[in-house]
């Protein structure tokens, strides 16, 4: 898609900033933003116009744990990085893929987390090395917040999207959990209606799809990463 029409460009930028775009349209627009400086200017203009609205909201102080987590992530990483960076660890990982889930689960996840912590180490299906981790708290009411970490510097081909799938196990078909990015750290929300099935899922997979996601509701492109869900 190329935006030659200034008016269309401006209208789309306005809706992107306002937040009315559907998930698919937003994902497509995000791809365009990377390659279109005029579109980025249009978005910046609309941010300048509309964002002052937010100033009307009454302040709401976040709980203290938010700052502790931010501080922990930015300035106190050495205790988890040590293991991640160690060659011995990766040698061990390659030898004993089955044990890796537990090792990473213990090293990178706060031990104070309540029971029902789910973790999935997804491996690159060709190299078999760990490529992505997905963790969430199971057995709680409501939706699930998947905490996703992409390991290394993965790149997405132009005009494609990464779609995350839940593999229920048995003969049951995969169920889409949504589109993800190549960002090292990201979150994905899974609605409450899917939560019980997700907590029971056999595994997760990531496939390469056309931008905007699979048109059929089932994986259409190659599966790059795959892994089994483990309850810690």
């Amino acid at each position, binding site marked *: 898609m190329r935006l030659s029409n200034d008016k269309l460009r401006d209208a789309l930028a306005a809706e992107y900033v306002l937040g009315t775009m559907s998930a698919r349209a937003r994902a497509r627009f995000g791809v365009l933003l990377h390659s279109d400086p005029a579109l980025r200017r249009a978005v910046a203009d609309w941010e300048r116009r509309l964002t002052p609205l*937010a100033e*009307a909201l009454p302040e709401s102080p976040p709980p203290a744990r938010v700052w502790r987590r931010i501080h922990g992530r930015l300035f106190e990483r050495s205790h988890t990085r040590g293991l991640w960076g160690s060659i011995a660890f990766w040698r061990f990982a390659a030898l004993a893929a089955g044990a890796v889930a537990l090792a990473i689960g213990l090293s990178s996840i706060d031990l104070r987390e309540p029971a029902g912590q789910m973790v999935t180490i997804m491996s690159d299906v060709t190299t078999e090395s760990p490529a992505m981790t997905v963790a969430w708290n199971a057995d709680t009411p409501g939706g699930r917040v998947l905490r996703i970490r992409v390991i290394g510097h993965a790149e997405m081909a132009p005009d494609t999207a990464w779609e995350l799938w839940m593999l229920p196990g048995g003969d049951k078909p995969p169920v889409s959990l949504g589109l993800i990015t190549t960002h090292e750290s990201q979150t994905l929300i899974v*609605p409450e209606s899917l939560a019980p099935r997700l907590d029971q899922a056999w595994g997760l997979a990531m496939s390469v799809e056309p931008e905007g996601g699979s048109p059929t509701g089932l994986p259409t492109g190659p599966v790059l990463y795959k892994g089994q869900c483990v309850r810690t």
Partner: protein
Amino acid sequence: MTPEQLISLLSRCALRDQQAFADLYRLSAPKLFAVAMRITRRKDWAEEVLQESYVNIWHHARAYDARKSAPMTWMTAIVRNRAFDLLRRPRETELGESQESLLASIPDDAPGPEESLRQAGDAARLADCLAKLSEEQQRSIRLAFFYGLSHGELAAKLDRPLGTIKTWIRRGLERLRRCLEGMG
């Protein structure tokens, strides 16, 4: 909290000053948490959004340009984008009932921002221009802005066809732009 204060803190963050980052958080987080709460409507998600946003702000402080945008505008845009990304849902069809109950929990009218907006320059102009729109245009734009509702969700919420909602928003935004640029 003045814009000058925030600009100075952001420029110190760009130099990796952790104390400046702590001060920036203390001054701006209550406002930004309110923004995240309003869109995600769940405390745990809003906390997640805030956490991701400040990590982003720290990493990208160097990219902030005071000539291009006010510091709060820049940070608010980061929070809103993270919130929309987090809300990104797998398939509209998978939502079913949970979406309906979510929509029902939103009040019919987003807060009228006018009163508190009448202080600052930019915000005051925005409030004046918003007030010139039709009632439907104002209402749909406010609901979209404050609660992050998509066209489809707005249509369900306001019980109007999708096309009508799109027209209200498109024309409303167009009028708003002309007004803000002093042409309407």
